[in-house]
């Protein structure tokens, strides 16, 4: 029993910094929230088809379940599921749904829900309790179908009340991607890790995120004010007046600091002793380009092409891709954009793409490995990018290269695509610059060989840390071992930069550490030429650049390279940042 006046403090692992004050919203059963929206007359047929498809999939689920029960000799269960199969395909139900979609021009979830509610009413009026119980079956088939509808159409965190703090067991990339930051003010989950793709999306949206939270405990107390401190991982339920005032002030202070930061847009990204570094943006969606322009950004250092297609069922055609890439390139108005080919596999798949299950997908067939195997998919993408390249300043980047031969093979296929397009009379940028991602220790160690074969290198620190330290980046239990400040990582970055310098090509860093302003002087000091971060971090990183000098940064890097542990290096970086930018309470807590 919780007293009204009692303040409850929970501790989680901070993932995405920031402070939020709001009301809890439990994101558990997707079926509980039924979206409602209108559709055009021209969409009616597609909407009906969506329903049929969901029914077919739900039936497949049931048949699978039946097989399992059959094996376990639970024959009653098989018979009940038989009834469910018939209910799902009930011709009157289907006809009703179709008629109602046509008549009301509403989405199928809403229509279906309404019809099920009608059945509920009728069933509730039956006197015999034995028959009334059948409603549970009807409800279950509704749930099963709606689950599959959700697969076809992104739904979930889109329709929730304002100032919601989302409590969930776990979040997928889709859940976070769908969340509207006008309504969702924070995430708190039981599972998840700092650099899971869901977390990256949350960071991109600037939504505070704490994981490792005992959400079951929170579930017992629903209607309270909740504070999420994404700097420390503290979650405070039912805060006292004093606590609430304190956090409100902190939140305002941060807001003010961030507001001041946005005025750095027109300023150069150079140290106070005049050393310039290229700042670029990582983008996934077209809408992010507006933010980039607003913040005075002038380069995209990483366009994650797979994100534009993740919710699709099949691979997009060359024409579809070409139109999308061209739209991005044109929006850049001649400013450079680095397009990375599909980084699929690991935890990112197209929804319906059939892949052999791998016991260890992060060490499996992902990124360039996948593309070199699925040559048609790779070539289709290369052709689309090449065709879009004439509309601006485009570079090409290959993900997760682990040996020289992969880079060479990718280049060979690029040349082939160029020839094919030229033969067709397509105009392309035949000198498109090529970059190689350094995400695997083996690639970092042969940076000299790779540097000879390309025009720039781009270090993806998230994977580099995960692979170098052999720590799964989404494994909560090992989060203390996932340390980007590990001395080995600093040495690898230094090695890559020095080899790249030797061959006269630039090095970018595009992982999470690039967006952490405490790392900015270190990366500058190590000789990195470009930092590519989610747009919203451009001001904070630029501010960090402008508040250091290249002399101090170089000294800091030298000092850090002499230290022997991740924690002592992190301490050094935090201390330096606190001196450089004392007003930023994000990191100074």
């Amino acid at each position: 029993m919780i007293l009204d006046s009692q303040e409850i403090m929970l501790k989680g692992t901070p993932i995405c910094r920031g402070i939020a004050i709001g009301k809890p919203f439990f994101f558990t059963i997707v079926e509980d929230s039924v979206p409602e929206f209108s559709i055009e007359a021209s969409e009616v047929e597609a909407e009906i088809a969506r329903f049929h498809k969901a029914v077919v999939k739900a039936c497949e689920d049931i048949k699978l379940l039946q097989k399992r029960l059959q094996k376990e000799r639970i024959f009653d269960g098989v018979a009940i599921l038989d009834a469910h199969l018939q209910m799902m395909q009930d011709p009157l139900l289907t006809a009703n749904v179709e008629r109602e979609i046509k008549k009301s021009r509403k989405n199928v979830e809403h229509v279906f829900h309404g019809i099920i509610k009608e059945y509920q009413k009728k069933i509730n009026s039956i006197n015999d309790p034995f028959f009334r119980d059948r409603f549970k079956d009807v409800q279950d088939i509704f749930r099963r179908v709606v689950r599959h509808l959700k697969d076809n159409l992104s739904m979930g965190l889109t329709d929730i009340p304002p100032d919601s703090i989302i409590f969930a067991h776990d979040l997928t990339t889709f859940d976070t991607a769908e969340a509207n930051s006008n309504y969702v003010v924070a995430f708190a989950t039981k599972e998840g890790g700092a650099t899971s793709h869901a977390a990256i999306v949350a960071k991109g949206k600037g939504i505070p995120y704490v994981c490792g939270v005992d959400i079951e405990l929170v579930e017992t107390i629903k209607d309270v004010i909740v504070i999420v401190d994404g700097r420390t991982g503290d979650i405070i339920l039912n805060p006292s007046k004093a606590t609430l005032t304190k956090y409100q002030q902190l939140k305002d202070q941060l807001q003010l600091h961030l507001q001041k930061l946005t005025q750095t847009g027109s300023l150069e990204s150079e140290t106070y002793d005049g050393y310039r570094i290229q700042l670029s943006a990582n983008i996934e969606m077209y809408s992010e380009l507006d933010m980039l322009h607003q913040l005075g950004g002038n380069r995209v250092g990483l366009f994650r092409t797979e994100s534009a297609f993740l919710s699709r069922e099949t691979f997009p055609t060359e024409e579809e891709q070409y139109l999308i890439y061209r739209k991005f390139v044109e929006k850049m108005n001649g400013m450079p954009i680095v397009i990375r080919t599909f980084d699929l596999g690991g935890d990112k798949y197209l929804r319906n793409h059939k892949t052999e299950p791998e016991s260890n997908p992060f060490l499996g067939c992902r990124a360039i490995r996948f593309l070199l195997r699925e040559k048609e998919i790779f070539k289709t993408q290369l052709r689309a990018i090449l065709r879009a390249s004439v509309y601006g300043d485009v570079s090409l980047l290959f993900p997760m290269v682990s040996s020289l031969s992969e880079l060479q093979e990718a280049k060979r296929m690029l040349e082939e695509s160029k020839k094919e397009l030229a033969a067709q009379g397509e105009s392309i940028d035949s000198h498109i610059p090529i970059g190689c991602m350094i995400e695997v220790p083996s690639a970092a160690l042969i940076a000299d060989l790779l540097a000879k074969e390309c025009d720039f290198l781009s270090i993806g620190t998230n994977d580099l840390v995960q692979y170098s330290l052999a720590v799964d980046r989404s494994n909560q239990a090992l989060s203390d071992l996932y340390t980007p400040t590990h001395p080995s990582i600093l040495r690898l970055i230094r090695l890559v930069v020095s080899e790249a310098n030797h061959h006269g090509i630039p090095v970018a860093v595009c992982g999470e550490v690039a967006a952490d302003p405490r790392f900015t002087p270190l990366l500058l000091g190590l000789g990195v030429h470009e930092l590519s971060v989610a747009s919203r971090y451009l001001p904070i990183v630029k501010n960090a650049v402008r508040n250091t000098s290249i002399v101090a940064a170089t000294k800091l890097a030298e000092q850090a390279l002499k230290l022997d542990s991740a924690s002592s290096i992190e301490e050094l970086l935090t201390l330096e940042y606190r001196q450089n930018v004392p007003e930023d309470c994000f990191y100074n807590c």
Partner: protein
Amino acid sequence: MKLVRKVRIKNALGLHARPATMIVKLLLNCKSEVTFTHKRAVINAKSILSILMLAATKNTQLTVTVDGDDADDIMDKLVTVFENGFGE
């Protein structure tokens, strides 16, 4: 051809999910229109939800109407399953 027959529900639990499933499956490929009439309600016998909604208990009398080319065959089969109490 249109056939009309009266049947009585013999099994203890009435027309619950299992018998209803049996009826619907039996009618899956049938060309005729099949309805059950109970009191004032006339329902499509190919719709399991409609059958369940009758909430027909033991000893309820239903009127079965089969209208179509295969009416003879279908009526025979239907009457048989009712007579057998759906094997329960």
